[in-house]
């Protein structure tokens, strides 16, 4: 599963969370980080990153915001 599909699933189940993660154009918000294991998705393939089986995905507000 790619990160984009994961975010689609989150948005489908929790719309208010979904729009906090991505804007209506589908872009990951600038100060939201997605970690695949210990790796920031922005250092991989961004939302096209494939999530390996069994690896935890963490969604976090970036320290750059606020």
């Amino acid at each position, binding site marked *: 599963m790619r990160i984009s599909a994961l975010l689609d699933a989150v948005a489908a189940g929790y*719309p*208010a969370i979904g*729009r*906090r993660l991505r*804007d*209506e*154009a589908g*872009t990951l*918000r600038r*100060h*939201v980080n997605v970690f695949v294991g210990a790796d920031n998705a922005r250092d991989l393939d961004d939302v096209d990153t494939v999530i390996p089986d069994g690896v935890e995905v963490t969604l976090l*507000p*970036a320290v750059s*915001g*606020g």
Partner: protein
Amino acid sequence: MTESEGIDASAGDVVVLVGTSKGLFALAAGPGREGWRLHGPWFKGEEIYAAALDCRHRPARLLVGATSSHWGPSVYRSDDLGASWVEPDPETLAFPKHTGAAVARVWQLQPAGDAQPGVVYAGVEPAALFRSDDAGESFRLDDGLWGHEHRPQWQPGGGGLCLHTVVPDPAGGPRLGVAVSAAGFYRTLDGVSWEAANVGIRAPFLPDAMPVFGQCVHKVDRHPAEPDLLFIQHHWGVYRSEDFGGRWEEVGAEQLPSTFGFPVVADPNHPGTAFVLPLTSDAFRCTPDGRFRAYRTTDRGESWEALEKGLPQDNAWLTVLRDGFTADTLDPTGLYVGTRTGQVFGSSDGGDSWGELAGHLPPVLCVKTAVLR
């Protein structure tokens, strides 16, 4: 007070909403406008560029355009003066997918007049107009303005490409004006088609100083009883139109200490009376000579007088943003100004004298007021 408490105010009271870079505050007082009570903050940590207290309904409805740096923008509403809030679900203040755009910030929430009690306009960044017909519960994009032929050439101002001002027809007609920084003033006369309406406004920062569009209009205001009379504070210059933007004439160039500034406020009680707050240049953007002064005209911009009693006049290097100055509908008119240094000043006599209502808030982004019915 705690964040969960609403504004302590009742019918006849004046409420001043203060949107800041770190949340929403509110001041409330009786019609005498003394003994101001400070409430808030709500939406801690979020930028509040837009707020409105819509008193066309009972109970009055609070609308707030908040932007979280992490989670993006949203318009919240409260029907109990801030004791509780509703977040829209789904969020309709959003661009349709076919546009490929996304709302970066809500710059303005503008209820229409009493003749259209359900209509609320929202101006956003990237510059677009949204309209609600259910008092802010849901919005739809104005496709006519979004599809305007000029749009591909619109350039942003220093704050971004934002639609920051909406000027509805107080009688509820189809005429509507909007201001975009830095595209200029646009109007619709039929409610469908839009046209640039900047004739007479100089844009010295462009090769053609009198372009059809591209002006950096900072703020527009009108008097409710004279809807054809508009005032503009432009990037350079204060302008007046007597025909709802058909033509503009510069005013005050020789009398104001600077023609640069952000807000302009039309006195809702006195046609032809308006207020500006000059700042020294677009590079410095602070009050001239270290003196915090508003300026008032009572003759449609022909002459201007400085208003300074009770305002700091010594080493006061202050900035007021485009929505940081507003007027209430009581007579004498109450005026309220918020600064980027977190101060709010108020006058209960049309600007003749002022006092500090709050002195230690986060940077003020917008000040809006209403009298509870």
